């Protein structure tokens, strides 16, 4: 079973070129991809420097604020993000840090947390970023999906609108 989030007819051609794609690639893996018009070292720096992370990790449009951000981006180093307004903490450690090309970290705020791998592939001065979230089991990913709906009641309305537009026409693939 595969499910993709892709439809965004309003996006212009320029945005289309650098659009964010999310795919459930297997029963326990989610893959997010996005292209950036900059060499990998800049994109990598923005992922590993607390002052820079603070500027984009909690986008205002997502209704979040980053209360604190501690990042020790070295193999074996730890990280901790705290979000508002309901003070939620996300933490874990870096299993592997390869400058400008790869980051692997654990998500330890829950027992069934994923291992996240981000790769930065540079080509012609642009970077393809791929983020993989590998959950310990299919159930863990299913639960994360159900849990996120449950944990964000303010999103129910938005979810419901989406469900309405999708209708029941989403047959089996």
């Amino acid at each position: 079973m595969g499910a993709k989030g892709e439809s965004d007819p309003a996006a212009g051609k320029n945005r289309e070129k650098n659009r964010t794609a999310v795919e459930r690639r297997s029963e326990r893996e989610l893959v997010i991809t996005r292209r950036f018009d900059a060499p990998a070292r800049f994109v990598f720096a923005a992922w590993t420097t607390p002052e820079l992370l603070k500027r984009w990790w909690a986008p205002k449009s997502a209704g979040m604020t980053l209360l604190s951000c501690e990042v020790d981006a070295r193999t074996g180093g730890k990280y901790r993000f705290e979000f508002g307004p309901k003070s939620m903490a996300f933490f874990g450690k870096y299993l592997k840090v390869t400058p400008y090309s790869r980051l692997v970290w654990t998500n330890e705020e829950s027992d069934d947390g994923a291992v996240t791998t981000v790769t930065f592939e540079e080509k012609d001065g642009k970077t393809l970023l791929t983020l993989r979230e590998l959950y310990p089991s299919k159930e863990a990913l299913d639960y994360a999906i159900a849990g996120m709906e449950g944990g964000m009641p303010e999103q129910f309305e938005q979810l419901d609108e989406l469900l309405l537009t999708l209708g029941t026409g989403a047959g089996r693939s």
Partner: protein
Amino acid sequence: MVQYSIARLDVSFAALSDATRRGVLEQLGHADCSITDLAQKFHMTLTGMKKHIGILEQAGLVATEKIGRVRTCKLGPRRLAEETAWIEAYRQFWAARFDALDLVVEELKQKKEVDGRKRRK
């Protein structure tokens, strides 16, 4: 509308609150299955399994079809639509994050280019 949708989600969460029912959904994610086979797999009576399937069916998470004497279960439209909707919401969240990242990266790039030019002078 909102009341209606919350009631509907309540039904979904109630349906998902049981370990056997979550197991059934996982099983049906792999392949369609008859109620008899599901009862065997989960070591329960046919009546017990029928009850679970009824709850899942009511929530739109499972659809059943009777062919001859066998009732076959598969994932329902709501289950699939919900996952697709969640993935779209998640995509929008990351898209917002990456749009903000774009600005940071662009600034780093500009700064570097300016620094480079200064150094060359």
